[in-house]
């Protein structure tokens, strides 16, 4: 141990040893300000360009020092997942722990190397500051504690989703995605930072943060309860939704977004169907209003409206032209993406509320449209888009040039189709992928090999189909050729031999209008004995009859409605694909909207006459 003898030597001169320090350099630290270290946790800086106002920093702040403040003039877009909120810090509460930095999903917030703030007595409020990219005094001192991989608290990696391999799925229509098991679902749900960007971005504003939280807590019933508040087609949306929620997800800013769609699917699959029914019935009044509503079409829009209206005590009758309900969900989406028993489950819940469904009943043929107006208090049109659009290129009138939507309907109805040996598909959207992948499966079963070519007008990165759809199609052997514009169908002796395409340079002109430009020197002929057009759909509204059609407002063949989905006739509403783009979740949102509007109209009329 120490060599010094720590004992009292008895000399009173010992303390005088300190006098020698008069001759030495003092150990005092100099007084001038010193720059803080590179890692210092000083006042905040916030990169407003990166910040999306998700308020995760506010949630983790252990002293409640952070308040989200609206900053007018900043971008606000729920679809992109951007709010004009920015964190303001109360430095009377802040403890400079930097948890806000470590959890920030975007990495916008960091602590600076600035550490001095003083104020006079009448400026006490100056401790509540909105930090901007320059810090709190408009003078940047450099970044101190910033986002680092070591301390990042955001879980950027998604739980892997088990799915069938390309080789195992290509010759059958079995569902590709297996769905999460409980373990994976809980871990995936735990990644959510509860910012609610998904809720804002979702067309029907599903309470995703709430049901994700319930899944994380292991309370599936509560999750389904939250899901049913805004979406009766959750088996469907849990599989085929375009998941705008995930596009807006703040965790997706730097990593992979939370798998919100798969979590919804997990909750729906994990709960017993009868229990789901009971949950859907919760809160349904035991009285009936005596009002009668007719709905044309049993797709997502019509059935969602039926669900809402039935839950409000109205009497709802749905007319469906096809043999089974579901509309485009059944007759447009292949079974490997959406198994029909799951669709049946969703519809069964709705029907269990007392909705009357008449299948194989085509309005205009089996029942005159005008009788609906007579027999019902309100009518909702939700007949969808069941006609394929044509490119109208030379040769497109040939019998082997078919519309994708028609072909898909035949396939999903179980009709036997003539499987082409070589097929070219025109279009780059999800429908094009659906038909390409369906035909690939038939080719594989029938001929053992696949020859499906998909030509899209858009460039690879701008293609309208989901990224996962494109990836899976390519895995399954579909050849995707982007930036090709169709020129003509090659016909030799009444036989379709191929499709001629040219290279597409740009699709839109300077004003953003659709006006494709082609490079005429780059021409190619794709050999094919069938050409499938998947470039869009149109509505068939002939069933309305001339008088009704005349009375309504149309623009470019599309029925015009107000923001509540009401047409110019006060008893007639329209919703779903026929008034807005083809997408299940938009249709669900539209169904809710018109149901509200119809309910208001019917109930107010009672008040007025009383």
């Amino acid at each position, binding site marked *: 141990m120490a060599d010094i003898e720590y004992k009292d030597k008895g000399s009173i001169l010992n*303390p005088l040893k300190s006098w020698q320090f008069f001759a030495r350099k003092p150990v005092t630290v100099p007084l001038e300000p010193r720059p803080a270290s590179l890692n210092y946790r000083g006042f905040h800086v916030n990169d407003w360009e990166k910040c999306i106002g998700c308020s995760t920093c506010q949630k*983790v702040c252990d002293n409640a020092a952070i308040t989200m403040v609206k900053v007018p003039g900043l971008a606000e877009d729920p679809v992109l997942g951007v709010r004009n909120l920015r964190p303001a810090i109360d430095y009377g509460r802040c403890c400079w722990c930097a948890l806000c930095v470590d959890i920030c999903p975007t990495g916008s917030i960091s602590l600076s190397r600035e550490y001095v703030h003083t104020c006079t007595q009448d400026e006490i409020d100056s401790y509540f500051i909105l930090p901007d990219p320059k810090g709190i005094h408009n003078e940047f001192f450099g970044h101190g504690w910033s986002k680092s991989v070591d301390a990042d608290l955001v879980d950027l990696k998604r739980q892997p989703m088990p799915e069938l391999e390309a080789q195992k799925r290509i010759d059958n229509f079995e569902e590709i995605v297996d769905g999460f098991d409980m373990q994976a679902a809980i871990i995936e749900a735990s990644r959510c930072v509860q910012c609610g960007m998904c809720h804002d971005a979702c067309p029907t504003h599903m309470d995703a943060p709430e049901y994700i939280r319930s899944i994380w807590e292991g309370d599936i019933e509560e999750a389904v309860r939250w899901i049913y508040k805004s979406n009766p087609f959750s088996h469907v949306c849990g599989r085929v939704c375009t998941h705008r929620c995930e596009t807006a997800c703040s965790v997706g800013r730097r990593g992979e977004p939370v798998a919100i769609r798969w979590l919804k699917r997990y909750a729906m699959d994990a709960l017993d169907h009868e229990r789901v029914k009971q949950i859907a019935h919760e809160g349904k009044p035991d009285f009936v209003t005596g009002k009668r509503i007719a709905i044309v079409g049993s797709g997502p829009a019509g059935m969602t409206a039926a669900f809402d209206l039935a839950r409000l005590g109205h009497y709802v009758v749905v007319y469906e032209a096809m043999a089974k309900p579901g509309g485009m969900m059944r007759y447009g989406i292949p079974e490997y993406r959406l198994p029909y028993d799951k669709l049946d489950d969703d519809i069964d819940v709705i029907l269990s509320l007392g909705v009357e469904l008449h299948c194989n009943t085509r309005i205009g043929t089996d029942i005159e449209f005008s009788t609906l107006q007579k027999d019902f208090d309100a009518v909702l049109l939700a007949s969808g888009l069941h006609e394929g659009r044509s490119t109208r290129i030379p040769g497109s009138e040939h019998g082997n040039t078919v519309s994708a939507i028609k072909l898909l309907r035949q396939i999903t109805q179980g009709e036997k189709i003539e499987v082409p040996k070589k097929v070219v598909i025109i279009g780059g959207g999800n429908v094009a992928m659906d038909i390409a992948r369906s035909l690939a499966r038939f080719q594989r079963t029938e001929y053992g090999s696949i020859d499906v070519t998909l030509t899209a007008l858009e460039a690879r990165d701008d293609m309208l189909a989901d990224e996962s759809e494109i990836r899976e199609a390519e895995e399954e052997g579909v050849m995707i050729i982007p930036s090709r514009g169709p020129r003509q169908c090659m016909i030799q002796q009444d036989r379709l031999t191929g499709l001629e395409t040219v290279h597409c340079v740009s699709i839109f002109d300077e004003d953003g209008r659709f006006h494709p430009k082609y490079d005429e020197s780059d021409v190619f002929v794709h050999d094919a004995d069938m050409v499938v057009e998947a470039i869009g759909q149109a509505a068939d509204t002939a069933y309305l009859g001339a008088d009704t059609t005349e009375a309504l407002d149309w623009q470019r063949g599309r029925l015009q409605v107000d923001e509540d989905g009401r047409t110019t006739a006060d008893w007639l509403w329209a919703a779903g694909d026929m008034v807005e783009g083809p997408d299940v979740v938009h249709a669900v949102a539209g169904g809710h909207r018109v149901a509200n509007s119809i309910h208001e109209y019917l109930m107010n009329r009672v008040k007025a006459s009383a």
Partner: protein
Amino acid sequence: VRPENYQAKNHPPSNEYELNFGPNHPGIEGNYALQLKLHGDKVVHARADGGYLHRGFEKLMEGRLWIQNIALVPRICVPDPAPMELCYSLAIEEIGGLDVPERAQWLRVLQLELSRIAAHLFTFGGHAATTGMYSNMYWGVTDRDILLDLFEEFTGGRVYSIYNMPGGVRRDIPEGFLQRVSDTLDYIESRLPDYDNLFFTNAVFIRRAKGVGIMNQQQALEWGVTGPNLRATGLAFDVRRDDPYLVYDQLDFEIPTEDAGDAWARTLVRRHELMQSIRILRQVVKALPDITGPIRAPIPNPLAWTVPAGEAYTRVESSKGETAYYVVSNGSDMPYRVHVRGPSSMHAVQVLENMVQGCRIEDIAQIMFSLDACPPEVDR
């Protein structure tokens, strides 16, 4: 006429008087008070009163997420916050079954021992000042400041480092940092002869501190004394050696003891420990470059992080003694119960109350500093 329920107040004998020592008194550590009964300058009876610094840490922790508490626990002991962070993290790691990467363990030792040196320097200063030697206090505080610069550099905060996190640490050391640690250790070591000259071999200190505030080993054990205070009674007990945590079992160091059990012995044990901490740190500086790998075990998103139901009791050796946490989880996202066993709650209550009895009033301050009691630990 007196009311029926009148009871005569039990007045002290006329030769005794009461004195409130603290909570605002330069001779007391932090916001702490002693209610004294004095006979002349001699303490007849003392009662410790620790309620001036009650912040309700243990209760607060029950309402905060697991991760949020890492910013709260260092505040339980201001001069030596590192063991608090570590102990809390260790408990969660034990319940949650988190494996702390090796590099993180070494970095934790680095932080702990630097913190121990800083805390001891602070305490010398305190003891010196209470015996009238203010130069030594200035030195202690100044040299501690150099260590705080190191903390600032690698943890981001000078006093509250908030460096540990369940699963590991939050930052790796910056480039060239080990060299600066090494230089600082050389500097601190070069200062020790000055401290010895001015303080430890100083007749004033020795005559003032020797024989003051004595406790024997048996008393120390009965009162729950730990740390340097226990070792000053001749018992070489140190959690780092006797119940090793982190990588202390791979490190070579001694447990200094003294036998006198008085204020002098206690402060002297700290002087020896300073050297041992420097010795440990030199080994860490040597070993760290060869230990690579992650510095943190992955934990889930802290906003949705549950620790499995269970309980853990973890203890570490702080500069003040045995710091321990008893953490209970019921499987939710917040602790069900956290109990902090701060060493100072024993030292500043039962030990101090007994020790000051019979001593002179001017020795109370140095007894308290020689016990190195930290008031916020007393009333959590």
